[in-house]
């Protein structure tokens, strides 16, 4: 199976000061730059999940794409298995990109409606020059629970959860060591969410995969992530072990985010909503000259 080719204890991915700016034109036609990701540094270890949480527009997806080199970072460095990716030539980069896969929120949009489950998975397997593509693709589909006659069905014959399983089979078929999961369960129902989350955990244990798990759903993050990075306006404002972030959040934005969770218990949730509506939520200002400070071992807070 896919074994991480780095010694234990070294990160699989190390991003340093990754910045991504986009040039946009405003109504008057004058150009300005928007910094979607601002000097972000993080590490992902083999077999571990790093969650990236934050509000929409905070830069989570852009960060994921910059790490995968789907969008080249404006500045900063991304090392994968010890190799700097940002300076690679396209052909060299492609070899690494096979080891880094991505799955998206909407599995219907990421599958070709005219191809069967098996054909969907065969495509990347063939491109990766596997010796027995059909066996490999069938194996990948088996791993996600798509078996027998099902593999010859078209996407429309599958439910949303099953389609996401096919997308996962595609990703694991080419023996990656990292999968970026961009809101992989946000479009799914609660019980299906739980099934996909369990599947991702099982695959991680069996195949030694690392995940970067981008989500705005804190409940799912707590279920799956070893480490959590909280993003706000393009910056990581807090980073640490998931239990530490949820148990003793330090940054005001993290506190605000966790404080807004509504638990499925009427007595608790009602009081919480009343408290929240009484608060005035001013936008938080980040010190532009600030940076992450280690407040305890492995727990970083933007100051």
């Amino acid at each position: 199976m896919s074994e991480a080719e780095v010694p234990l204890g070294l990160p699989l991915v190390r991003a340093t000061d990754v910045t991504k700016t986009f040039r946009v034109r405003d109504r008057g036609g004058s150009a300005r730059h928007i910094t979607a990701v601002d000097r972000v540094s993080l590490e992902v270890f083999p077999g571990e999940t790093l969650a990236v949480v934050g509000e929409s527009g905070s830069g989570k997806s852009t960060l994921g794409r910059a790490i995968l080199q789907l969008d080249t970072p404006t500045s900063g460095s991304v090392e994968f298995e010890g190799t700097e990716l940002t300076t690679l030539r396209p052909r060299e980069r492609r070899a690494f990109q096979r080891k880094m896969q991505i799955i998206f929120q909407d599995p219907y949009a990421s599958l070709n409606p005219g191809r069967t489950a098996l054909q969907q998975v065969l495509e990347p397997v063939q491109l990766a020059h596997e010796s027995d593509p059909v066996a490999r693709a069938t194996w990948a589909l088996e791993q996600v629970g798509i078996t027998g006659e099902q593999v010859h069905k078209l996407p429309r014959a599958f439910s949303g959860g099953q389609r996401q399983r096919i997308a996962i089979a595609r990703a694991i078929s080419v023996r990656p060591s990292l999968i970026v999961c961009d809101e992989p369960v946000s479009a799914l129902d609660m019980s299906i969410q739980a099934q996909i989350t369990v599947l991702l955990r099982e695959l991680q244990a069996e195949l030694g995969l690392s995940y970067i798990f981008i989500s705005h759903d804190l409940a799912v993050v707590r279920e799956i992530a070893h480490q959590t990075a909280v993003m706000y306006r393009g910056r990581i404002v807090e980073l640490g072990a998931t239990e530490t972030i949820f148990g003793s959040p330090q940054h005001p934005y993290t506190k605000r985010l966790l404080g807004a969770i509504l638990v499925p218990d009427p007595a608790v949730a009602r009081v919480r909503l009343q408290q929240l509506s009484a608060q005035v939520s001013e936008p938080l200002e980040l010190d532009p000259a600030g940076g992450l400070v280690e407040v305890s071992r492995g727990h970083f807070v933007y100051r």
Partner: protein
Amino acid sequence: MSNNLLRIQGLNVSITNRSGQTVQILRDVSVSAQDGGILGIVGESGSGKTMLLRSIMRILPENATQGWGAIDFDGRDVREDFARSRLPISMVFQDPLTSFNPLRRIGGHLTEVIKRFQGVRGKAAHELAVQALTQVEIPEPARVLGQFPHELSGGMRQRAMIAMALLVQPKLLLADEPTTALDATIQAQILALLAKLRQEEGLTVMLVTHDLGVVAALCDRMLVMKDGVVVEEGDVEAVFASPQHPYTRQLLDATPNVMGGAHE
């Protein structure tokens, strides 16, 4: 016992697909929305909860047919003229970006609704638009009226859509997953706004969601749907405390307890 603003009995909806097959989407659905209450409708996708709202709004797809046993609105039998008369009901959707014309400023959207539903135009309409945005707690309303939908954040866009829905002067607001695309802090703000509108304006709300935390925080009564059928209905506290239908129990069990102790 409180009065029902809306009471529907025996609603059936079916859709005929291109190959001529008829699929029943809603089967003998009965639903009551208490005046000034917030009713939560939960269920998985495909359970028919969105179709229920769309039936009430009369915005079903063209290939759908519907039949009603009884519909009462505000104490009146409206079955006869439901299709023709315009009831004071409006609706907000999950993604406000797709509900706005992207090339039109927020002010243009609001003043059109004001003109159509309140017969007011010009400076007076502008004043009403400013008031509408103020009511949904949008800061700097005059500036926001001059902005395009994409220039607003997700939370502000949802507020603007609620403002637009309120300009219809509805008694009943239908909300289809209004906070699903928003992160926790913004979700709480939008829910707090709905609670305020109920409190201060006496607005009745029917809210479709898959998030039981939202139901727990905001709703008085809830309806659980599965495969086009209502499987459970009751007061929110009662249903959470002792769910009767196996499917309701399954839904409550599937909800991850985010603030609980360490998971296994």
